[in-house]
């Protein structure tokens, strides 16, 4: 089972939590970067199903699928920011945004973007900037309007951040220079934002032979304790790990977490999730095409810890009441195109699909 797992490790904090990136960036918190200004997302998809509040972004993961030749694919994990709704599973939503491609364009773009696909295995965030550049240069369908507005945003970003800092409250109306798109909705709550860089998990493969090299420095431990001839520790058999407060599954979960204690999420398309508890809910089937859902990524507790640390001091902060150990995201195994363009050769419309998310809670709380 040589499944590669990519870990999302924390990178630098965003200078401003509401700063915009592009949809190729993987980040935690902040404002969701939709690929186009007008996504046509129904408003109820962005609202909490329990209380109707606008959802805020927890994680935005750029997740192309190399095997199916899909480059334009992003997963957004959203949650209701009210403290009461946070712990309940119905207030979490996962959206998969994917560009539907028709047949002619797939071959053309697939070769050019071939080298840049997949979560980058190197760890420097500048790599993401380079990837952004290579995408923009290679992509024939690039939207010049988007480029113009992005440059305008960048130019006004510095002046905007200073203006925002003067006003303490996030929902006070702020004078902003006119942008092409609608002004950012300041009533959308925002979680603290930081960027992610990727790394492959190097889990140590178990050694087949009982290693002799490690025994020598510890041989004396064995002889010291075995000095007394009357004592023979007979009849010992293999014993599974047992602790008073934690079961075997959790101990294995914690062991892999301790290898990379800062991992914010684990990504493995079609792989097996790292469970924290044995009870697993059924993922169900995709709403659009009916194919079964499979595991794609899971958010881990260190992410919660970082958000919690960043939000200390603000009242009514959602993540302070979250108690989950891990959030597992299941997506359509065929990664079907969710838009309703009927197969016309358009190649430019983005589809949004809602996927399944299950929470594994810390049951002690």
């Amino acid at each position, binding site marked *: 089972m040589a499944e590669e797992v990519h870990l999302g490790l924390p990178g630098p904090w965003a200078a401003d939590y509401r700063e915009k990136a592009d949809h190729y960036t993987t980040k935690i918190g902040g404002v969701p970067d939709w690929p186009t200004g007008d996504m046509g997302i129904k408003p109820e998809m962005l609202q909490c199903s329990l209380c109707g509040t606008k959802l805020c972004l927890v994680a935005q993961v750029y997740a192309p699928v190399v095997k199916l030749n899909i480059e334009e694919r992003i997963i957004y994990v959203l949650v209701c920011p009210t403290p009461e709704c946070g712990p309940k599973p119905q207030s979490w939503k996962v959206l998969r945004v994917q560009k539907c491609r028709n047949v002619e364009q797939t071959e053309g773009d697939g070769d050019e973007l071939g080298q840049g696909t997949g979560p980058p295995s190197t760890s420097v965030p500048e790599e993401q900037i380079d990837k952004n550049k290579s995408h923009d240069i290679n992509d024939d369908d690039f939207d010049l309007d988007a480029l113009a507005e992005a440059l305008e945003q*960048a130019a006004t*970003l510095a002046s905007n951040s200073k203006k925002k800092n003067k006003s303490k409250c996030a929902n006070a109306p702020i004078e902003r220079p006119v942008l092409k798109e609608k002004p950012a909705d300041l009533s959308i709550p925002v979680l603290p934002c930081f960027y992610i860089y990727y790394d492959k998990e190097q889990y140590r493969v178990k050694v087949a032979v009982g290693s002799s090299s490690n025994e020598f420095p510890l041989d004396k431990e064995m002889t010291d304790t075995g000095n007394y001839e009357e004592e023979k520790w007979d009849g010992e058999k293999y014993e599974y790990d047992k602790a008073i407060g*934690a079961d075997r599954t959790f101990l294995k979960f914690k062991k892999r977490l301790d290898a990379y*204690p800062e991992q914010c999420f684990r990504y493995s398309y079609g792989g097996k999730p790292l469970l924290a508890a044995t009870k697993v809910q059924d993922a169900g089937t995709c709403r659009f095409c009916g194919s079964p859902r499979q595991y794609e990524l899971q958010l881990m507790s260190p992410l919660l810890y970082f958000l919690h640390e960043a939000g200390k001091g603000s009242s009514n902060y959602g993540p302070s009441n979250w108690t989950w150990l891990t959030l597992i995201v299941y997506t359509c195994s065929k990664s079907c195109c969710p838009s309703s363009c009927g197969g016309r050769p358009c190649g430019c419309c983005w589809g949004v699909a809602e996927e399944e998310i299950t929470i594994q809670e810390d049951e002690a709380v």
Partner: protein
Amino acid sequence: MADRGGERGGERGGERGGFGRGFGRGGRGDRGGRRGGRRGGRQQEEEKWVPVTKLGRLVREGKIHKIEEIYLHSLPVKEHQIIELLVPGLKDEVMKITPVQKQTRAGQRTRFKAFVVVGDCDGHVGLGVKCAKEVATAIRGAIILAKLSVVPVRRGYWGNKIGQPHTVPCKVTGKCGSVTVRMVPAPRGSGIVAARVPKKVLQFAGIEDVFTSSRGSTKTLGNFVKATFDCLMKTYGFLTPEFWDETRYVKTPFQEFTDLLAKPTKGLVIEAPVETVEA
């Protein structure tokens, strides 16, 4: 595009110097260096520990000061770093490493089983057992399991209540497999009257004087040690007249430190902590 890329790179570069909230301890090099497999020496674990459970987060923040607050509410401890922080004087000792064998088609497969006892010699003791293919892994794993199983030990007096408690408060008995161990209060100065193996556990627990009596196949020393530990766990389970008073219930740490009920819910907007930009 170049503008935007440069700007973002500049902002990130500025942030890289001082991370502040939460990432302050590790720079970029640190994370990069750790990529290549297991790290060599032990790192300062209090600094690098990222808690996984809610209880871990409360302990990390310093909201829980003594481990007794956790024992009072019988909260399960799932992270060994919690114990390391709350019980600072813990010492550990490897009691035994035995090979255990399993017959396979290709011969015998040997693994090592390590027994480790941890304790602060003052009322807290833990026992960990781990099997692994390498001795070092078994010892490391057993230390972690031992820390996870740290329990309080109740001590009392044999007769006059002068000085500090020195022996078990009453006769208690523990069982594991066929081995039963019975501990009987002893007068001051008797010392621990027990076999060599359980004596170590009792020393780590902080019991100064006790008479023990065991029954069953004590040759299986694994069971013997576990029976002694089970006996120590039961010292606080024994109801004595001191506990006859009505319990005054105290809020669990989760209820005490939640923001949900404390603050009145006003607006539904999160105030994003705003950065001060130096001009």
